[in-house]
């Protein structure tokens, strides 16, 4: 059994590395494949081993998905906002530093997960029923808060929030396969790539600078993440992105470095605690946790201990793996033609969209790309584009 567990963790890390690094390949997709083969696999492998594989893959993914987001501007839905401060670091030749900040953030998430797991097990179930009734109000307040953060044009912020809301509602009601793939990839990934192709962006030589995290930065981000990340782990529609923006308001004037650490913490905390919320409140916001639920039915104390051990082991390995992979990216980025890479990734995302979501998915992808591009050219924050998930979720809870 021990050998099987070790193998499952290693395989999970390898698969999580692929999903984290290849734009458009999300863990939900691999989880769905594992789930659809679970009946066949259950004859060969125990469900616990499949569970460990999924946990290991999901945690590795949260450590590594910032690498394509920051180096190539092609994020997956969980790391869309890292491209904003991350792109700034890239243009200063310090993308590796940005990756290190997110990696340290994800590593800091591990003790937070350990602390909040028993709290979630004992205290969340009795209060969740009350929280559930105020979820739409929380989301509406969060939307108003995010819009009021806009300094350039609040009118455009509202317009973009509403337009992306309409886009989200119409996409999610189209019964597409993987509807979030064309929607979020277009709004955040494809549009960034088009923008850098149009602007003929030159990427400077990347330096491997050692980063400095002061005790003050560390305590501010841990304090802010501990207060907010566990709450966001069971709130729908507010992803790691918005959560990081709202969390960063807890500390005054967060620096870009603090924001990246915060994003790393939140991304990993949300993923790990989603495995726990599924057991305690029968709700989860991640596809990986839902796949585990379908494989194992219910989680025992032993399962939860195994999940936590897998989170810690794969998290620590992914931290060092992420550092090495980022160095390889930093060394080789100037050697490649960034425009050609952007065009290749854009073509890959288009093909992935057609494969999974069909021609109507392509229409969603094109529309999302242009809406994302409009927002970039307008110069307002791209976070309002998350109206595409927030508005449909509020409507779902209210109706």
């Amino acid at each position, binding site marked *: 059994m021990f050998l099987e567990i070790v193998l499952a963790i290693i395989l999970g890390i390898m698969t999580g590395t692929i999903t984290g690094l290849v734009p458009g390949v999300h863990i939900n997709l691999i989880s769905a494949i594992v789930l659809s083969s679970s*009946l066949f696999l259950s004859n060969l492998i125990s469900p616990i081993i499949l569970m460990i594989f999924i946990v290991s893959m999901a945690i590795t993914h949260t450590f590594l998905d910032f690498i394509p987001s920051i180096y190539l501007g092609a994020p997956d839905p969980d790391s869309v906002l890292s491209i904003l401060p991350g792109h700034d670091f890239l243009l200063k030749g310090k993308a590796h530093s940005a990756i290190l900040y997110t990696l340290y953030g994800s590593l800091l998430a591990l003790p937070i997960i350990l602390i909040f797991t028993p709290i979630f097990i004992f205290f969340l179930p009795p209060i969740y029923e009350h929280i559930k009734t105020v979820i739409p109000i929380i989301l509406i307040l969060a939307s108003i808060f995010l819009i009021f953060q806009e300094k350039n044009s609040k009118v455009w912020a509202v317009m973009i929030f509403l337009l992306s809301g309409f886009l989200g509602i*119409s996409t999610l009601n189209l019964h*597409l396969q993987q509807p979030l793939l064309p929607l979020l990839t277009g709004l955040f990934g494809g549009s960034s790539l088009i923008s850098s192709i149009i602007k003929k962006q030159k990427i400077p030589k990347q330096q491997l600078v050692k980063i400095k995290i002061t005790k003050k930065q560390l305590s501010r981000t841990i304090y802010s993440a501990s207060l907010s990340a566990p709450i966001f782990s069971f709130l729908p529609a507010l992803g790691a992105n918005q959560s990081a923006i709202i969390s960063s308001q807890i500390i005054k004037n967060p620096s870009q470095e603090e924001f990246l650490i915060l994003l790393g913490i939140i991304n990993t905390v949300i993923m790990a605690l989603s495995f726990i919320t599924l057991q305690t409140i029968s709700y989860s916001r991640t596809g990986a946790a839902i796949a585990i639920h379908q494989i194992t039915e219910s989680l025992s104390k032993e399962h939860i201990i195994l999940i936590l051990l897998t989170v810690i082991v794969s998290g620590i390995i992914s931290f060092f793996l992420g550092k090495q992979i980022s160095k390889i990216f930093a060394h080789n980025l100037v050697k490649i033609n960034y425009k050609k890479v952007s065009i290749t990734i854009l073509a890959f995302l288009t093909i992935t969209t057609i494969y999974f979501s069909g021609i109507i998915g392509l229409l*969603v992808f094109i*529309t999302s790309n*242009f809406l994302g*591009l*409009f927002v970039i050219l307008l110069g307002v924050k791209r976070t309002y584009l998350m109206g595409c998930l927030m508005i449909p979720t509020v409507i779902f809870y209210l109706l």
Partner: protein
Amino acid sequence: MSLKKLKTLSLIISILGIFTLIILNLTQQPKEITTNQIQNLTDNNYVKIQGQLKESKIFDNFQILTINDKEGKFTTILFSEQQFQKNSSLTIIGTIQTYKDQKQIQAEKIIENVS
């Protein structure tokens, strides 16, 4: 093309795209299927199927309905408190979902057919 023109063009294309998607939403029709076809369809396919209610299990916030038609039986999940008589003829509109390697229909709407 100047960035200003591109900005305007991007806004126009995105509004036209959203408008087209809304029209597609309003005009989309579920595909009429029978039990045999369920296993061959991919998840999220929007379908319409008729059958007779054989069994219903009611849980906290959902029901599991077993429906029969001429070709066999299938499972439907319904997230509502709507109740039906055993053996009543139903038209189910919903999406195909896979649960434990088995296809089932997540009902969006169930209409009781009056004979």
